């Protein structure tokens, strides 16, 4: 196992966005009229530190997806900064962008769709190293990562359709770990999985944060899943961050309306049995 990424002593953020705004131009309503502007993100401040798991929750349309695209460097912000390791990603030069690319990795929602059905798992796992032109003993790295996510070596020769959803999500996480990232962004990583499998994947993510000192950004719509996995939650609504706090505090005393809605939406077996779930 390669050395665990050291924690910066000062605990400064690994990946952050500062005063970030993003807007899209919509279709013209009238000929020659200026194109209407849709503000999807407004003045977002967000940060994740090494070994810290941060949640991002909100209804669909709240801007979660756009913020994710910013954090992964897919989209350039209209205003504000995306900062990795203290340097702006978009003005920090090509070398820093490459470092950013390999250090921030993504796990997507639907594991069936996130692996090429015509590629053997082994090939898919090597893909990040090849495309990011990372040197080193690739074969050894593959075995190391397989061990980290709890998969057997025999998986490498197989195709994605031979696996169940939970196993595929492990493979997707393994692929994200290949370039030895420092931040993992997980976009609804368990919402496509069965309940009994969800717990396995959530536990795995928690272990990775603890064992590898990864920063984790966990994006979800379900507050209870986020609360279990993270130590700090950002609540988004209409393109703004409306509340930040510890999950339990948010759950007990939600102040923003969006948070109250999310907390109110959580159904539990206990409240159902008590007969007041839909009250």
């Amino acid at each position: 196992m390669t050395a665990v990424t050291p924690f910066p002593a000062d605990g400064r953020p690994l990946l952050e966005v500062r005063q970030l705004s993003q807007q899209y131009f919509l279709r013209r309503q009238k000929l020659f009229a200026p194109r209407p502007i849709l503000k999807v993100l407004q003045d977002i401040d967000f940060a994740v530190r090494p070994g810290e798991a941060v949640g991002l929750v909100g209804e669909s349309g709240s801007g979660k997806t756009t913020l994710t695209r910013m954090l992964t460097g897919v989209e350039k912000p209209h205003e504000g900064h995306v900062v990795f390791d203290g340097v702006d990603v978009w003005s920090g030069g090509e070398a820093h962008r490459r470092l950013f690319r390999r250090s921030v990795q993504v796990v997507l929602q639907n594991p069936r769709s996130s692996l090429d059905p015509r590629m053997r798992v082994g090939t898919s796992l090597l893909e990040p190293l090849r495309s990011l032109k990372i040197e080193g003993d690739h074969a050894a790295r593959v075995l190391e990562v397989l061990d980290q996510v709890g998969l057997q070596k025999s998986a490498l020769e197989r195709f994605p359709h031979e696996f169940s959803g939970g196993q595929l999500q492990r493979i997707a996480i393994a692929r994200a770990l290949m370039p030895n990232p420092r931040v993992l962004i997980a976009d609804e990583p368990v919402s496509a999985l069965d309940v009994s499998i969800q717990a396995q994947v959530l536990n795995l993510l928690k272990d990775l944060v603890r064992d590898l000192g990864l920063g984790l950004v966990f994006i979800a719509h379900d507050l209870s899943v986020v609360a279990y996995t993270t130590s700090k939650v950002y609540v988004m609504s209409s393109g703004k961050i409306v509340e930040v706090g510890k999950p339990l505090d948010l759950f007990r005393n939600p102040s923003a309306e969006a948070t109250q809605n999310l907390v109110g939406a959580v159904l539990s077996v206990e409240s159902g049995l008590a007969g007041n779930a839909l009250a």
Partner: protein
Amino acid sequence: MTDTASPAVAAASPRRRVEINASLVVGLVLTVGFLAVALVSFFWLPSNPNIPNIKARMLPPFLPDHWLGTDGLGRDIVAQLMVGARTSILVGAGGASIALLIGTVGGLIAAAYGKLADETISRGADIMLSIPGMVTALVLAATMGSGAFTTILALTAFFTPSFIRVIRSAAMAVLQEDFITSAKLYGRGRLFILARHVIPNIAGVMIVQFTLYFAAGILTEAGLSYLGVGVTRPSISWGMMLNEAQQTVGISSPLAIWPGLAIVFVVLGLNLLGDGLRDVLDPKLKRRSA
């Protein structure tokens, strides 16, 4: 990893059940037989199919020297059918291959290179589709003279827009998958994504479409040759045989049956093969589980 609740998970047992696909088997037998006949014709023919033999005119079928008899000029039917198979393959496969090649390039560009490229290529394909294929073929034959090459050109013009459409929509479906997003996140370029991810995933569609248009090409070629704007002797085509048989209808009707049957079996074989391959190659069908 010390996850006691989830021990190392073994991969699911591969499920490669051998399924007997009737249309695939029948299609394969017919198509391989057709290809074999064409191949044999290069090395062996019962007699020269282009030299008339006045003494042996209009012989009935099932004779030892002429299994299916002879035509109005005494030429052996089996020999003509065998050489005709070559023409069918040359023209059908030629037209379908070139159309597949252009259609794949065009369809991939339309799917992956932005709205302008898509609009230009898709609308161009629509315009080409709106011109009837027969008209294109007749115009080409009138300006360039008839022959195998002209027919291939006509088929290409006729098939390419359809290929563009099919490839474009298949490629777009693949491009929406998350593994494409991942590849982009790793900084892979469009060409790499098309070559490594998109083409392998639409190869099944391409193969199936090829067999179907191969069959359509054989049919169209027969139609053109029947009208007299396809190939000319010394080349032989089944459509041409149909045309010539027309002159002897009433005297010896079976003459039209043999090339007709040949066309029916080959087109049927290729279509069954295409259907069978579609079932076998479609990953969505394979993935389906209850």
